[in-house]
């Protein structure tokens, strides 16, 4: 099986040149941490970042996600050019951000823009775990708020792919306030009668869970994503017990009534599209 994979290398080397740097993973092979199968990365990417052997959904960069969801050639990025005021003057923070920008070729932990899903215009925000674990600081909060406001202005559905370790600690209390800023914007979006679909991906935790992630009219999740407010380790330390199997996973949230539906990545675009089309008002 491994030999088969090596044969593909030359063909795929060509395709690889077209990829953005943020999509490049180091090395050609990856071991699936679920089924332990050795996977050729290009094959994994072609399978939408899902393990062909066991179905594990690997984390996706924002760029790859947008490619999977938005109609080709329709995505126009918005909200770039913002910088943090570095409110805590946290040692090395700004430098780290610069290095991450260079490495990931995205400006912050969320990419936002306008595009089409099966010809329907939407505003989309996609968080990226390669950028400080998708944590929300002032720029992420601002970009998300601008995206919500853009969706209100255009009167189009809002789609947000959430992925976050929580608030951006390096920005202290300013990060906390982003929860209020984004959630207030969602309240306005709601008042405008517009559709907001929130998609929770692995992991969605902390301040993002406790703000816009949980405020979707419809909340979808990828299989087996970690979703919660408190991190599992914090809970374990507090209650001094081992957590049950499957705790804070998508299936657990579905069972407890906190998400609408678990959707596999291969069905994600069509599911979102169907939901959008069901909200095009035919009752007037």
């Amino acid at each position, binding site marked *: 099986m491994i030999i088969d994979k090596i044969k593909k290398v030359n063909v795929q080397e060509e395709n690889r040149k077209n990829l953005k740097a943020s999509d490049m993973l180091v090395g050609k092979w990856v071991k699936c941490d679920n089924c332990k199968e050795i996977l050729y990365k290009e094959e994994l990417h072609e399978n939408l970042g899902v393990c062909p052997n066991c179905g594990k959904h690997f984390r996706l960069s924002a760029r790859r996600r947008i490619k999977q969801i938005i109609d080709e050639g329709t995505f126009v990025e918005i909200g770039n050019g913002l910088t943090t005021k570095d409110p*805590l003057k946290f040692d090395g923070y700004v430098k780290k951000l610069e290095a991450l920008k260079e490495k990931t070729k995205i400006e912050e932990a969320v990419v936002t823009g306008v595009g089409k899903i099966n010809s329907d215009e939407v505003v989309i925000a996609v968080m990226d775990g390669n950028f400080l674990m998708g944590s929300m600081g*002032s720029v992420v909060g601002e970009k998300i708020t601008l995206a919500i406001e853009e969706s209100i202005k255009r009167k189009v559905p809002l789609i947000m792919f959430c992925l976050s370790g929580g608030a951006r*600690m390096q920005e202290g209390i300013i990060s906390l*306030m982003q929860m*209020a800023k984004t959630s207030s914007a969602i309240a306005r979006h709601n008042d405008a009668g517009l559709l907001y679909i929130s998609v929770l991906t692995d992991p969605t935790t902390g301040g993002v869970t406790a703000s816009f992630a*949980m405020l979707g009219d419809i909340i979808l999740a990828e299989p087996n994503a970690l979703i*919660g407010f*408190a991190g599992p380790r914090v*809970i374990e330390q507090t209650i001094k017990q081992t957590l049950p199997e499957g705790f804070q996973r998508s299936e657990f949230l579905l069972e407890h009534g906190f998400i609408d539906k678990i959707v596999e990545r291969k069905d994600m675009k069509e599911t979102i599209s169907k939901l959008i089309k069901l909200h095009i008002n035919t009752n007037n």
Partner: protein
Amino acid sequence: MPKIKTSAWDKVLLARQASRPKALEYIENIFNEFIELHGDRLFSDDKSIIGGIGKIEDYTVTVIGQQKGKTTKENMERNFGMTNPEGYRKALRLMEQAEKFNRPIITFIDTPGAYPGIGAEERGQGEAIARNICSMSNLKVPIICVVIGEGSSGGALALGVGDKIVMLENAIYSILSPEGFASILYKDASKNKEAAENMKITAKDLKDFGIIDKIIKEPEGGAGENFESVTKELKTYILKSIKELNKLTKNELVENRYKKFRTMC
């Protein structure tokens, strides 16, 4: 006598002091009447949150406060002021009731954070906090939020979206505890004092950021040393704010609140 500068860590200790006045004491001292109401109508009554209807001079208001205990026994009963989803949902029920009857809302914030437990997650801690934040931003009555002790993380913000945000001089308001910050960012939980200093969590820091509107002075040694003077100043400020906010139309009120949080960056 020159006042000795209180360090950020000193303030953390003061804010957490067991003997420090808790929400109920503020309620008793500031409001001439108070009837406590219980339960979220969904699951249970979270005793880390006290809510009800009160009177401050002639104004009928809804009062909500996070209640820590002063003794271990009280703290067990109050879950150390760590709120579960049902506590946030009780608060939201009472805030929506306040909107229905057009009365201002006063919240007292004092929590080490939302409770991190299995049940809390099963019952949607994240959803409960998100719902409160989102709904508070849109309530068409004046909201005044007072951080009296520890305002930690989303567990505090869930009662903290208001038109006026006030902090006691020795209260703290932070994204997480200095200990947590030190262990995550310095990989060393013993650097808590350094963390407290660098995190900018004091009332003065928050005022400088433009996040809070008012600092209520505390006597040397903390609010408990001269509680009467503290509650007097706070009561005056609450009354002044209610009068000021009552002059606005409902739209202006909500619009100003939106702008207030919209510009925090």
